[in-house]
């Protein structure tokens, strides 16, 4: 039902240039798109918002290319990843240096602080994700935070499913090692 209402809104945007329908789509999907980009940019809130705006602008100008094969959110995530990838190719090296991002502007969202009553270390999701290579980070974010299946991740990132599996395995291994080394045991 949800995808049907999305398709109806998309049709109104594509055929009648209905801005109100697009407004509804942006409101509905701004949170997952911004959360995805925030994790990709390691918590850089202003950059994430710029990229998210570009994502929705591209979605608007290319809305007729949405075929409804995948969900609208999957299509948006694909655009978001392309926007991020283009940005990184042009200008990205300044904030991502060998997987260790500048984490000065961490946000409330990115700081998934986990604390327990005793000596639980404050663990930051952005810091943990910074341990990963970019493809690994994208795969891990899409699976562990956004809840996508391997096949869907493969479609979003335009990678073979086996490559996604490899990235996920390596990413999860690195994260587990990192969390354990920093004293995170999952108990609250």
């Amino acid at each position: 039902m949800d995808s049907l209402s999305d398709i109806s809104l998309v049709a109104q945007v594509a055929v009648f240039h209905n801005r109100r329908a697009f407004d509804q789509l942006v409101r509905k999907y701004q949170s997952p798109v911004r959360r995805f980009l925030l994790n990709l940019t390691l918590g850089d809130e202003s950059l994430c918002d710029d990229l998210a705006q570009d994502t929705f602008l591209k979605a608007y100008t290319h809305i007729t290319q949405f075929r409804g094969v995948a969900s609208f959110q999957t299509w948006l995530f694909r655009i978001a990843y392309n926007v991020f990838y283009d940005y990184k190719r042009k200008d990205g090296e300044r904030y991502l240096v060998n997987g260790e991002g500048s984490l000065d502007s961490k946000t409330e969202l990115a700081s998934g602080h986990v604390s327990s009553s005793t000596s639980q270390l404050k663990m930051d999701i952005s810091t943990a994700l910074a341990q990963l290579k970019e493809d690994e980070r994208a795969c891990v974010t899409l699976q562990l935070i956004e809840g996508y299946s391997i096949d869907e991740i493969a479609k979003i990132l335009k990678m073979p499913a086996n490559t996604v599996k490899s990235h996920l395995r390596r990413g999860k291994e690195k994260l587990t090692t990192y969390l354990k080394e920093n004293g995170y045991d999952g108990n609250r």
Partner: protein
Amino acid sequence: MDMTEIDDKLLQQFFEPARQKQIEDNGFTERVMRRLPDKAKALKLSNYWTAFCLTIGLILFVVYRGWEPLIVSLVSLARMVSQNINPISFFMVLGMLGCWLIVDLTQRMWRLQV
């Protein structure tokens, strides 16, 4: 319990807060809507261009007496059609044209509303 299972559990717990977090809009949608290209403006320009081409066409039609060959063609076409017209095909074409006209009019009315 094997190693992979322990890892997954740990990671699921670690990412739980991020999974549940919703980002507030805080004017984001308005900022996006302000930056949208104005398709209505583009539509206006395209209408001006259509009107311009139509005017040129009309002038050429009058200058070169376009109605003369048109009348000749129409008369010969009418003669040919009246000799061997198929009513089924005729009504099918009429129906198709009617549907197209209705869809086009609806679209135009929608655009005017938006």
